[in-house]
């Protein structure tokens, strides 16, 4: 996988999930007071909600149709999801991992995306924000995490059967 291991041995900590958790976990909390991503609590990072806020901003701009959004982000767009996409493009270009691969069944992937965003909007959280909300002490996040773990367990059974 990592072709240029010798040259980048000093930067090996970048590939550690623990380092990711440390940086992103602190940033998620610090983003609230510093960047003012803040009327809803624990809103520093949420893929589903930030994608919705971006779409809501676009929808108001183009069609004058309001979806729904957090108080802080009615007039300004939240570009977190675009940033994640661009950051990943940048990183994979730098490390020669950028290539088009087709592996999954595309129609299935479309519907999984559709279902995940709908269930995510019911609880206003993606898995990342659930962990963040739990760190803030939200009991509803704990209930959702219990449901999430049950869902993963059943999903793993399906994966073993090869759905």
């Amino acid at each position, binding site marked *: 996988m990592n072709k240029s291991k010798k040259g980048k041995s000093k930067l090996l900590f*970048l*590939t550690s*999930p623990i*380092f*990711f*958790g*440390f940086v992103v*976990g*602190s*940033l*998620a*909390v610090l*983003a609230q007071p510093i*960047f*003012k*991503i803040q009327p809803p*609590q624990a809103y520093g990072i949420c*893929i*589903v909600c930030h*994608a*919705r806020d971006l779409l809501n901003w676009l929808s108001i701009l183009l069609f004058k149709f309001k*979806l729904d959004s957090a108080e802080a982000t009615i007039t*300004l767009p939240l*570009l*977190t999801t*675009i*940033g*994640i996409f661009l*950051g*990943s493009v*940048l990183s994979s270009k730098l490390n020669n*991992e950028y290539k*088009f*691969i*087709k*592996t999954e069944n595309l129609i299935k992937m*479309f519907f999984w*995306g*559709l279902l*995940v*965003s*709908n*269930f995510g*909007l*019911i*609880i206003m959280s*993606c*898995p*990342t924000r*659930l*962990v963040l909300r739990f760190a803030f002490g939200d009991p*509803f996040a704990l*209930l959702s995490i219990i*449901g*999430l*773990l049950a*869902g*993963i367990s059943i*999903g793993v059974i399906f*994966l073993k059967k090869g759905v």
Partner: protein
Amino acid sequence: MLLVIGSIFIGLIIGFLGQRSRMCFIGGFRDFLLVKDKELLKGTISFFVSAWLTIYILNFIGYLFPALKEVTTVKLSSYPSILNAFLSKFGVISIIGGFGVGLFSTLSGGCPLRQHVLAGQGRIGSIIYLAGFYIGIIIYYLFIARFIGKLF
């Protein structure tokens, strides 16, 4: 304007580190169940612990320097107790929503964050997933939100 710059800055950092570390919040528990691999689970726990510690450190700084209160206050409102949460309507919705997110994310192969990163890497399946993801948000607000509003 701070909001826009801040969010794209955070996004770039998450995207870069997420691509390097293959971090996935669903993947932690999934890999643990499938192949007993704890690497990604450690990342999730590290995320939780550092978020929790940051809240307490900020509170402590706010306690030492009351002038900085505006910057250090992150907990804006308090939450109900766990028993009240469990008995309320929203508790049931939370469990159902969490279940759906967990099941369908496992079947698709990663949490939404991981799919954004994979799409940036050029995985066609993930780009199609993102198309479904954004169309799903519009469908939710056009049809499903009203239906759920009537139920509860």
